[in-house]
């Protein structure tokens, strides 16, 4: 009974795939932005 309750709770908490795909896109865009920002940081202080 305890296990079943937990599974049901987990199902309720799941977010839709479309939402996750937008999050993943956000992660990739943020990563690219961070790498570019690091490149700009290097360029600024190394010139």
């Amino acid at each position, binding site marked *: 009974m305890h296990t079943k309750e*937990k599974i049901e*709770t*987990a199902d309720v*908490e*799941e*977010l839709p795939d479309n939402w*996750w795909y937008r*999050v*993943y896109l956000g*992660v*990739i865009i*943020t*990563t690219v932005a*961070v*790498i570019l920002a*690091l*490149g700009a*940081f*290097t360029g*600024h*202080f*190394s*010139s």
Partner: protein
Amino acid sequence: MRFLDWAVVVAYLVYVIWDGIRMTKHSGDVEGYFLANRSLPWWAVGLSVMATQLSAITLVGTTGQAYSDGMRFIQFYYGLPLAMVILCITAVPFFYRAKVYTAYEYLEKRFDAKTRSLTSFFFLISRGLGVGVVIAAPSVILSIVLGWNEVTTIFVMGLSTTFYTMVGGVQAVTWTDVKQMVVIFFGLSVVLIIILSGFPADVSVSDGLHLAGASGKLTTIDTSFDLKESYTIWSGLIGGLFLFLAYFGCDQSQVQRFLTAKSVSEGRTSLLMSAFLKIPMQFLILIIGVMVFVFYQFQTPPMIFNEVEATKAAASKPADYQNLQGQYEAAHAAREQAAMEFVRVNRDGNEALIQAAKENYLKSDSEFKDSRKNATEFIKTTNENKNFNDVNYIFPTFVIANMPAGVIGLIIAAIFAAAMSSISAELNSLATATIIDFYRRHFKPEATDKHYVFAGRVATFFWGLFACVVAMYSTSLGSLIEVVNKFGSFFYGSLLGVFILAIAIPRARSRGAFFGLLFGIISVWVSSHFLDIAFLWFNVVGCFATVTAGYLISLTVREGTQN
């Protein structure tokens, strides 16, 4: 170390052990002890994921590496966010919904028991030896820098962690990881502020960064495609991607973290936390090393950071050592003058003068590096230690020499925290794989929860003791660290290949997975002996070899059958 420092270290150790032990009440059954009843919030799991990856040797080694080689190492992590996204789509829902305790358990559901046992066995061997090195490396450094007994340091670090992990299980591991991350980042932030306040009055942070930039210490993107070069954007994005897919998706010490989350969504969020925070976190650690470099432009650093080796060489050939010391101090004085001139001219903004001052600074920096290189070579020949390298001693030696009372204790506690957070997660995962993949699967399948929890505690204690013994031996056999790292690289890419076969290739069969794994490991071994490539590429080789061989072997099995 003064009384206040000792008080901070002892208070940290007592608190962590107490905090771990009080989790006993949540670990009475198998799922509670090994998976925290799948009840933990994403932020706690996410911090635990990051704490497990951040070992003490990463902390002191990375700062030392930034001091001597700059920030190039950050490229190692550029593939991590993409790896986390791929794992959120694949591994997290697969493992979580399969209701497994170990990643390898899933392989039995997909293939067969021998594939599960083989992968779990490789995990136990490589991680069991690896955790010994995780204990040994900081113990050696702390014992030399602080004058502590090496064996005592190993056992204080190893057995105290074993004790709370054994008693509290995965809940103790996760919640102590959370507090240990707080200690680590509070300590590092305090050190950074003190370093910056230690610059000369007329040198600003911006001046320091320009100085570091002029000496090439701020390189964060190297676009050259050189397979022999360890850290380029390509080795990070491609080799690093494979390494992190394997580490976070197939290594039980990490898989077990997200299996404790409340739901698939919380498990995904915990991994994405690392995707967002890992590169900035590594930037903070590396910039501390770079700022130590800037600090030592205006203060004379030790010629050799490993004091024991320096004393030994100085006692053996005192006149030669004094001569080298004199050359070193003269080179530093010239570099300090050139650095001050560069800072002054750079502020005025005259391009021609800046270029001239930069060239002069780089020339004196090169002479300074040569004098340190001469000293290093002197240590190697005088002490007959051809592998001598003091990079890992830079940060702890700097802290001891320049931090105020209390802060030294805080940093030692942070180094302990970094080590213990990794050790606890690894011991817990070793115990889980031992009990779930071997003891319960092959020897005692029908025992009570109480029995398996007891067996889990015994297994944790065994692996803790094993790790301490390995740590004692690895301090005297320097090459063992290299052997263990290589063994890990052999394993990771090939293991990732097995999981790709399991999750992404429906035509894969158990025979293909089993022999594909063996073929992958052999391919990496052959590559390491006959190809001159950096270690990150081993993960790519192992993965491709396993998937290709596994798929081709699977084609020999008639469709519709499993074996």
